[in-house]
């Protein structure tokens, strides 16, 4: 019995003593921390994802207070966090555009051809080790979920053999962009609907053989764009989002239907109907013009006689 009492007493006294020492030490060695840093950190999401390029939320908060990072440095918190931080620091927010990750591939199970059956490790990296993946197209999303595993926010999921980003959950932290071994994920502005859904830099015929919808590099989108915002780079169009006005003409012009938003089956159908209507209207107009001409000719003919 006594030994228990001793043990409790000894450890209790030791704990008390050390606690007191630490309490005094914290007074003596107190460092003045800029009180705005914890205040700014309060406004940040606290996920410590590193999407801002600093080591965790504390790093970014320190950098913001020191003026090394902009108040909207946090891609996850977005405008809401930026506003709060700006209120804390008493500065103006410079508007930042919300970005989201986008998988540039439409090679779903029905669209992209497989050249082999892969039964290895359920990971894109593993599949690439085996003869650069199992799909005919060397640029196609393998759909084995390396990005899905990398996403800390559960915003990316493989649907029908291709990774899809859930825009409402995506925070543009760039984890998937770095994780994708095929390098087919990039950040795009969320506001602008126009996106290229193919990453194939192969020649047209190869793409035709490998995928039902891949970009054949025809360059129609480049020619259609009135704002000089889309350019072909190695058989693949690249959109310059600074110039793009979101008129969606390129998406309508694409013969392979791989430019969003005009790439879903419903939209394609709508587009075809629209084109048929336009063609019919054109035809009708031409017939009308021809009839009018004929009538004019007929009217002027008797006068000649």
């Amino acid at each position: 019995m006594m030994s228990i009492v001793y043990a409790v007493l000894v450890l209790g006294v030791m704990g008390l003593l050390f606690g007191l020492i630490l309490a005094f030490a914290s007074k003596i060695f107190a460092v003045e921390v800029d009180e705005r840093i914890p205040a700014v950190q309060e406004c940040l999401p606290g996920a410590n994802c590193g999407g801002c390029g600093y080591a965790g939320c504390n790093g970014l908060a320190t950098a913001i207070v020191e003026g090394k990072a902009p108040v909207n440095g946090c891609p996850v918190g977005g405008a809401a966090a930026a506003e709060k931080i700006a209120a804390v620091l008493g500065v103006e927010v410079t508007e930042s555009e919300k970005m989201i990750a986008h998988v540039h591939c439409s090679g779903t199970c029905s669209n992209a051809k497989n050249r082999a059956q892969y039964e290895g490790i359920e990971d894109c990296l593993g599949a690439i080790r085996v003869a650069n993946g199992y799909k005919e197209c060397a640029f196609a999303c393998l759909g084995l979920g390396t990005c899905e595993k990398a996403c800390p926010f559960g915003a990316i999921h493989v649907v029908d053999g291709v990774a899809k980003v859930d825009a409402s959950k995506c925070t543009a932290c760039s984890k998937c962009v770095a994780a994708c071994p095929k390098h087919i994920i990039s950040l795009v502005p969320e506001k602008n609907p126009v996106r290229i859904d193919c990453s194939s830099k192969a020649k047209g015929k190869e793409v035709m053989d490998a995928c039902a919808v891949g970009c054949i590099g025809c360059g129609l989108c480049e020619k259609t764009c009135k704002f000089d915002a889309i350019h072909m780079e190695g058989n693949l169009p690249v959109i310059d989002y600074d110039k793009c006005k979101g008129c969606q003409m390129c998406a309508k012009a694409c013969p392979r239907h791989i430019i969003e938003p005009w790439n879903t089956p419903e939209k394609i159908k709508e587009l075809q109907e629209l084109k048929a209507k336009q063609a019919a209207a054109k035809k009708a107009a031409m017939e009308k013009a021809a009839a009018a001409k004929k009538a004019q000719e007929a009217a002027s003919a008797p006068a000649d006689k």
Partner: protein
Amino acid sequence: MTSILSIALGAVLINNFIMSQFLGCCPFFGVSKKIDTAAGMGMAVTFVMGLASAVTWLINTFVLVPLGLGYMQTVAFILVIATLVQFVEMFLMKSMPSLYQALGIFLPLITTNCAVLGVALQNVQNDYNFLESIVYGITGGLGFTLAIVLFASIRERLAASADYPKCFEGFPIALVSASLMAMAFLGFSGMKIW
């Protein structure tokens, strides 16, 4: 005097805490990317280990043993070490903020660094007296510093000239080089001092 010398040499080379006892591997891998931070970490660990051996020896000899509380060693020692680490952390934050920044998360981790607890427990096991305990603690820390600085220089070199397969990049090659280093330190194991 000879016993002290043999304890010191033994702690640094023959029974090196990392290389032959495999204690304190967490900071060994975590803070060994740059020589500067590695040396800083080594110094912090040496400081904590020396201080911890002194305080734990005093507590063990004058409090625990007389009261027959030898079985409370681990708990009491952890208490001492945790306090010391907190103290060192405050001290560094005040006097050497750059080192504090560089050590980052690993400073609080010294609390759970088994090399520090190991030195305290081994002092008791080996029946060292006060002076011997302090010497064992400090030289053990110096052995840790030696190992981590050597390892950091190897890793800096590896990062600069990557002459190994790409899949070994980062931790794999670090583990391989650490095991090679441990094998090299094995060469000391047969040594006898006086």
